[in-house]
């Protein structure tokens, strides 16, 4: 009888723990981000290959780790609702290209630096969690980098990166809504301008 009760309690606890994890598996999310950063540092920054190969590897890692469809929708803000499917597709495409280009260039700045993972914090959005890390900057204060991770089934994707409290998604969103507000060409003009940026980069 006692043993039975014990078993029930254990089963119940496991069930509770299990259902809590169904929401979002913070540990697995952290492991995912750790893997992405390790891969970036070992296979791209520190790899002894040509820049073209590095760019190629970066693009692959970027596309597999970040959910650009999801981010792009947020970044376009309220303008998303008034756009046609063709515009949306064009925007996501050029937004992806611009990010890959600018970040693969800046990626080398991380040379010799490493991420220290310090834990996770909950997010207000369902199925999402922040993986908290710091980057050692030598004499200066370490920089805080928070990775916003979204879980879908067993798949994890980064949906935002928050550096020293500055969210890249919010910054892009404010930038684009600022542009659209001051530009009669609206979303089409934005897509054109972004394309110009990609071509220049």
């Amino acid at each position, binding site marked *: 009888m006692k043993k039975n009760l014990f078993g029930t309690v254990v089963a119940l606890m496991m069930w509770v723990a299990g259902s809590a994890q169904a929401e979002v598996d913070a540990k697995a999310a952290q492991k995912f981000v750790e893997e992405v950063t390790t891969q970036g540092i070992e296979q791209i920054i520190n790899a002894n290959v040509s820049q073209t190969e590095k760019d190629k590897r970066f693009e692959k890692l970027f596309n597999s780790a970040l959910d650009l469809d999801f981010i792009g929708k947020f970044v376009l803000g309220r303008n*998303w*609702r008034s756009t046609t499917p063709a515009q949306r597709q064009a925007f996501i495409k050029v937004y992806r290209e611009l990010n890959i280009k600018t970040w693969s260039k800046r990626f080398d700045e991380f040379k010799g630096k490493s991420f220290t993972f310090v834990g996770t914090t909950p997010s207000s*959005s369902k199925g999402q969690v922040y993986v908290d890390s710091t980057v050692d900057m030598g004499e200066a204060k370490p920089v805080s980098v928070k990775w916003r991770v979204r879980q879908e089934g067993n798949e994890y994707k980064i949906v935002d990166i928050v550096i020293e409290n500055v969210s890249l998604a919010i*910054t892009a969103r404010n930038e684009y809504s600022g542009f659209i507000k001051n530009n009669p060409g609206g979303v089409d003009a934005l897509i054109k301008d972004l394309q110009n940026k990609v071509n220049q980069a």
Partner: protein
Amino acid sequence: MIRKSVLCTALALVMGLTTSCASNSANQDQHVDEDRFETYNRAMFKFNYRFDKYVLRPVAEGYRAVTNEFTRERISSAIDNIKEPISVGNHLLQGNIKQTGIGIARFGINSTLGLLGMFDVAEGWGLKREPTEFDVTLANWCVPDGPFIMLPFAGPSTPRAAVGDVTDYFMNPLYWATYNDANIHDKVTYSYTGVNAIVLREQNIELLDELERGSVDFYATMRSAYLQNRKSMGCHAQEDKSYDFDFGMDEEDQAFDEMED
């Protein structure tokens, strides 16, 4: 909180604005009022941008061309040392006694053994630099930030940041060391301000270039990053998770309406 109300009055007088010092929390996540001077700000941004393009950036590049990294590090370190008393005063105002002591020791050691601060000797002795400023002190006292303002030459700011900068200026040891001789005083403080601007600009050449290259609205990008970063300061820092916007797509309409500038 007499001090706080005096500060608020000062803020209001200096900036000609009504800063609501009574309600700190109401100021929290409202993006609405943060750029009520956008037309003026964008014009001033344009002016600063031109000044930077034709004056400050070329000078900073020249400075980089005629110095090597070692020299630049010595200069930047000496400037950090000059600013040390500002940090000391503010650590004290923030009630951080330990860091106040460390700052005093650092200033003493680095000004002498560190050859006027060119070398950070104290760092090697475990006395780590922890810079702070009056803006941070005000934030710790829960003084609200106020709207975004683009200042001529100085760039992105807010009333609180501006009051902080002015106060720091008066806390600068160079200001006091030359106080009795008006002639030297002006020369020293102007030179210091100029050198400081050039050194800072040189350190950020690549960063700002990159930011601009990837941005379709450089003003909006800068404003956004500046204001977000400031939300991590002061007495509301812990509870503020402004970056944790609602990503849930079901409530997108509501979330979008709340977030737009």
